[in-house]
């Protein structure tokens, strides 16, 4: 096989894979169903984001699932306390792959203003976070921005490198 042939071969495979990637990413990006999971103040801004003025439905995200099995995205909206942390972790682990996490608000990011005995200082200590949305609470626009950022992140993923096909 000459170099040219090899390059052509590689190119073909890449083109094929790129197309697969594009479809793979497109459908996950276009249909991210969040789990209805509000913890504290931020949950309300999350609900507002779904309401008339901001309308999360435009992204196809109004299909809020109550069960983690059917959800793709967990928006940790609010303070995670030590009492709640095992439940958050369990919910996350019960979600079906592929799954994403947005940490919404200062509390979910770092404990925020609540540097106290009962608050987990950032949800990223127990579950991996994809996008952080700062604010206390972030405005709905900020959450939408975070979601768009997450979509951009998904668009850059490739079916070859995504973690969920690897053996755990």
């Amino acid at each position, binding site marked *: 096989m000459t170099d040219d042939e090899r390059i052509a071969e590689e190119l073909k495979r890449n083109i094929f894979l790129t197309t697969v990637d594009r479809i793979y990413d497109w459908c996950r990006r276009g249909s991210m169903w969040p*789990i*209805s*999971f*509000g*913890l*504290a*103040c931020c*949950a*309300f*801004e999350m*609900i*507002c984001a*779904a*309401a*008339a*003025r901001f309308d999360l439905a435009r992204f196809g995200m109004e299909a809020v699932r*109550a069960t983690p099995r059917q959800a793709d995205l967990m928006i940790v909206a*609010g*303070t995670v*306390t030590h*009492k*709640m942390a095992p*439940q958050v972790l369990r*919910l996350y682990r019960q979600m079906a792959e592929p799954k994403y996490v947005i940490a919404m608000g200062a509390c979910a990011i770092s404990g925020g*203003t*609540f*540097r*106290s*005995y*009962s*608050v987990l200082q950032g949800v990223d200590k127990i579950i991996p976070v994809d996008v952080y949305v700062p604010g*206390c*609470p972030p*405005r709905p626009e900020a959450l939408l921005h975070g979601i768009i950022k997450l979509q951009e992140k998904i668009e850059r993923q490739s079916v070859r490198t995504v973690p969920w096909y690897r053996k755990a």
Partner: protein
Amino acid sequence: MLKTRTITLNLGPQHPSTHGVFRMVLTMDGETIVDLKPIFGYLHRGMEKLAETRTYLQNMPLTDRMDYICAMTNNLAYAITVEKLAGLEVPERAEYIRVIMAEFTRVVNHLVAIGALLNDLGAFFTPMLYCLRERERILDLFEMTCGARMTCNYLRFGGVAADLPEEFVPQAREVVAGLYYWVDDLERLLTTNEILLARLQGIGILPRELAINCSVTGPTLRASGVPYDVRRAAPYSIYDRFDFKIPTLDEGDCYARYLIRLAEIRQSLHIIEQALDHLPPGEVQAKVPRLLRPPVGDAYARIESPKGELGFYLVSDGGISPYRFHVRAPTLINLTVLPDLVRGLRIPDLVAIIGSIDIVMGEIDR
């Protein structure tokens, strides 16, 4: 005889209709609830301890995050407690602004409560989203005044943080007029809806004596026929200057609580109108030292928050931060009656009752 066994079911902490991270352990026989055990604390953020390490003013943002739907009334309760403790006077204009904000907050809270109640009844978001749409208009007013939508941090000891912007009054009038119209609209959509009546009437009847014995306050109490409202019983701020009525109903069921909220929205709008009419010019902030050191002592002050009697109990040791900071959270105490209300009913009734009691975990757990 066939033996049947009860099952134990967790409702919450992650459940669509527990309004946050509230957990109930239900014992059920078939679909009938035999017993209910509420479990709190999933949002316990240690506010009372945190407050002991911060200055009085630094604690104001903490109160925002307690009952996050009505930040302004929390601010107000805390501010008047500190003012009582430190003996501060508040300029008249600031008092009017406080009343306007508090009543707007009440409207916001009741809208959310009604919307969430309908959501729990299974009305698939539409009434909720209508309520939130109207809420946005009020949040716009808050935002133009203090820069935040939800966690306002607007009140200061001896006044408010900033004067109202120029366009506030006309816009507030517009919002009030729109809300009058819109509350009528909501009534047309919901109040006589046959399914709503079937789901709410006669469900979760709270007897008057039980309500008093369990220290239930707020709309939940008034729906049971007790005309107790702190605004009337022990007027704070300048509530004695306004003409408003306190609605009560004798039935004490979920529907009564729903009706009370609608009636209170109209009363609040009426108060706001009066306050806007008589808004005096002048200062909005009294002279208060930057670092407040109230004299040694303790004080309790209370207001009628949208959910019930919200009180702060502060103990000062003369330092810059409170020695003890306690919140009398109305919703925590209102929940005392929950097991009594739901025994013998079913899960759909349970969510309706929780929705009608109107809880916010941020305030229950603090």
